[in-house]
């Protein structure tokens, strides 16, 4: 069976430019099929090569038309419901159904399917690191071949486009961004107990000690997440590192210019360890931290009576809280404060994350869906539902459903220092080892050196390739 997924590979290299031009004219200026074929034959293409090419660039050949696309994502539960709401108008307008396959074990599923030559049409990757890896292996479709790049440049700030670019080609659009410098708390509880929102790390530990001293638990923490267990703790360390050692060191760490056994990394782990292992900081620690899901762990500060007072996780936590406690008022019932300053020079530093849309097949369904997802209209649907921060400049800030979401979005946009969550831009193997290392470290903090050595071992192997 011929493959319609890619342009034929047997085209001579020096013909590529003329063929590219032909394709461009066909897709953008509406060349008729007949003209297309005439021009293609003039270039010396065979009939089959020409029709394959036509199919590949979205011709009207029936074999190339799809009525459904498969999309692989990590979104489940409430996040998936929201995404379905985003996709619904697309399906209605185009008649193309989107089959969503969700897995928390996206890495393994995607690796298997790609190696088995059966990739999904599209995937929403939870990190650009994986996207860079796949792009370098030639597994992704360049999106700038069909997206209107002028519109993309108008919608996204350059750093976001750069992060989605590999070797000068755009392979990913940033869809759902997350601000990971947010500590969640209940303003009502803080007020009635007379707690002050901490601005610095010392104030944060002082407040924690004060709450612990009164026989209550200041923190809630949970890092369980099936095959991805440990990631919430790695977010902690990344945010601490950026605030502690600054963006230059952060970049070196991410690029593995400094080893994991470096003192700065050890210090960041230990700073986190003071919260995770703090005296009377977390009920049932360390076991409860390891046994509790990151979603469940966001609830205790908002229960009546509260079982904890603070919880650190990205801004998507708002979605968990509002789903579990629908009557809570944003801004009073729940809110976040910015991650406290550790080193004054790096005040206001924000780590973040983003899910990126990538395509592995080139067909009309994929092109239409990616084009749709890029638009402000598609992103606004989820913005309004909550738990979603868009980096699309055309999305109106007033679309955010409440003051909390709006504050979070503007904190992200206005951050003086912004860096991508460290694990998300490291090679996936290093990130996975780091997650596992966090679990070991939380369980037994005396293991820190061997944990860091293990991650360093994987890093040495992963970065050299």
């Amino acid at each position, binding site marked *: 069976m011929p493959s319609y997924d890619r342009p034929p590979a047997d085209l001579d290299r020096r013909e590529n430019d003329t063929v590219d031009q032909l394709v461009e004219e066909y897709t953008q200026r509406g060349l008729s099929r007949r003209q297309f074929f005439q021009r293609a034959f003039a270039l010396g293409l065979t009939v089959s090569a020409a029709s394959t090419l036509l199919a590949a660039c979205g011709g009207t050949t029936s074999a190339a038309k799809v009525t459904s696309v498969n999309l692989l994502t990590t979104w489940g539960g409430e996040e998936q419901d929201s995404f379905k709401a985003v996709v619904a108008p697309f399906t209605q307008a185009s008649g193309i159904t989107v089959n969503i396959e969700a897995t928390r074990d996206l890495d393994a599923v995607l690796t298997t399917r790609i190696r088995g030559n059966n990739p999904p049409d599209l995937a929403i990757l939870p990190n650009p690191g994986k996207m860079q890896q796949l792009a370098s292996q030639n597994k992704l479709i360049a999106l700038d071949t069909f997206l209107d790049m002028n519109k993309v440049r108008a919608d996204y700030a350059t750093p976001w486009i750069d992060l989605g670019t590999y070797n000068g080609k755009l392979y990913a659009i940033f869809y759902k961004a997350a601000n990971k410098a947010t500590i969640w708390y209940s303003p009502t509880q803080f007020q009635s107990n007379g707690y002050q929102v901490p601005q610095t790390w010392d104030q944060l530990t002082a407040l924690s000690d004060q709450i612990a001293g009164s026989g209550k638990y200041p923190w809630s923490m949970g890092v369980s997440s099936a095959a991805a267990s440990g990631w919430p703790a790695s977010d902690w360390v990344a945010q601490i590192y950026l605030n502690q050692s600054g963006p230059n060191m952060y970049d070196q760490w991410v690029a593995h210019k400094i080893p994991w056994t470096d003192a700065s990394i050890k210090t960041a782990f230990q700073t986190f360890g003071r919260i995770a292992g703090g005296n009377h900081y977390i009920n049932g620690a360390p076991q*409860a931290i390891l046994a509790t899901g990151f979603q469940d762990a966001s609830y205790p500060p908002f229960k009546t009576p509260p079982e904890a007072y603070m919880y650190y996780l990205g801004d998507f936590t708002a979605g968990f809280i509002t789903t579990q406690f629908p009557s809570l008022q944003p801004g009073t019932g729940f809110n976040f404060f910015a991650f406290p300053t550790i080193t004054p020079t790096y005040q206001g530093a924000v780590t973040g994350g983003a899910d990126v849309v990538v395509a592995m097949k080139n067909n009309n369904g994929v092109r239409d869906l990616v084009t749709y997802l890029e638009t402000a209209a598609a992103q606004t649907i989820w913005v309004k539902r909550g738990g979603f921060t868009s980096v699309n400049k055309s999305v109106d800030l007033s679309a955010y459903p409440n003051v909390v979401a709006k504050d979070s979005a503007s904190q992200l946009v206005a951050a003086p220092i912004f860096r991508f969550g460290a694990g998300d831009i490291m090679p996936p*193997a290093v990130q996975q*080892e780091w997650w596992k290392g966090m679990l070991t470290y939380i369980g037994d903090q005396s293991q820190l050196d061997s944990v860091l050595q293990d991650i360093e071992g994987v890093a040495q192997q992963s970065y050299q390739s």
Partner: protein
Amino acid sequence: MATTLYTRANRPKSSGERWARRGGALVPWLWIAPAILFVAIFLLYPVINTIWLSLLNFDSSAFAGLTNYRRIFTDPRMLLVLRNNLLWLVVGTVATVFLGLVIAVLVDRVRIESIAKSAIFIPMAISFVGAGVIWRFVYQYAPPGQAQTGLLNAFVTNFGVQPQAWLINPTINNFALITVYVWMWTGFCMVILSAALKGVPAEILEAARVDGASEVRIFFRIIVPMIAPTIAVVATTMIINLLKIFDIVYVMTGGNFRTNVVAVEYYQQQFNFGNFGLSSALAVLLLIAIIPIMLYNIRRFRQQEAQR
């Protein structure tokens, strides 16, 4: 008409025999070819390829010799994986076979035998993943003072015992996982052993009783030796199962908290860490560990065939 005396040597050949002679040794090969082809494609080729990969480095770009194997036997993390597999092997086999045998003997003497056996056999019908999910609920942990939603913790806290993180505490979590396996497979051992028990002739047992042997003595000196071949079959089946154990560990702890076993480590090295050399070496190690047991099983099977 003269009578011809046909001997074995000069009798006329049937057409088939003539064809076979012309085809030489080709015909049997023709019959066996599809089977060989299947085995070669789906068994032989992957095995050889895996052995080859295990001698290469992590992305199969350079020859690494026995480095991967050396790592398995020196890296503390890999040693832990091997230790866990050994623990599974010993505790899992002993527990399933022993419990299966004891239950088989006990239910043999009660009137509700079939009901009791069905109840113990039912977990076999549940998939490993399903069992893992069920038992994760059983083992669920909440800090002291909170509502214990896990069955086991709800039970033990009734007696004033602190709730335990069964799956996280490294001193107990391996046993908590093995318990799930035992729960699933005891029924299997029981059914097979129970069938063997029924095959022990009643006359021998009666004779022993007449001679004044106690029931315990009868069990150890008569029943066990007589069903020994069946016990061996059940035990080897368990050993092969346990060497390959994957699902329970993967679903319940993901190999974290010092519970990793060879099959899960292999999977993670392959799919998460992209270390094809090490993962292939682990797979080869499993293969080598299973071969003697397979050979033992085959020899035993041949002996039984010969006795018939």
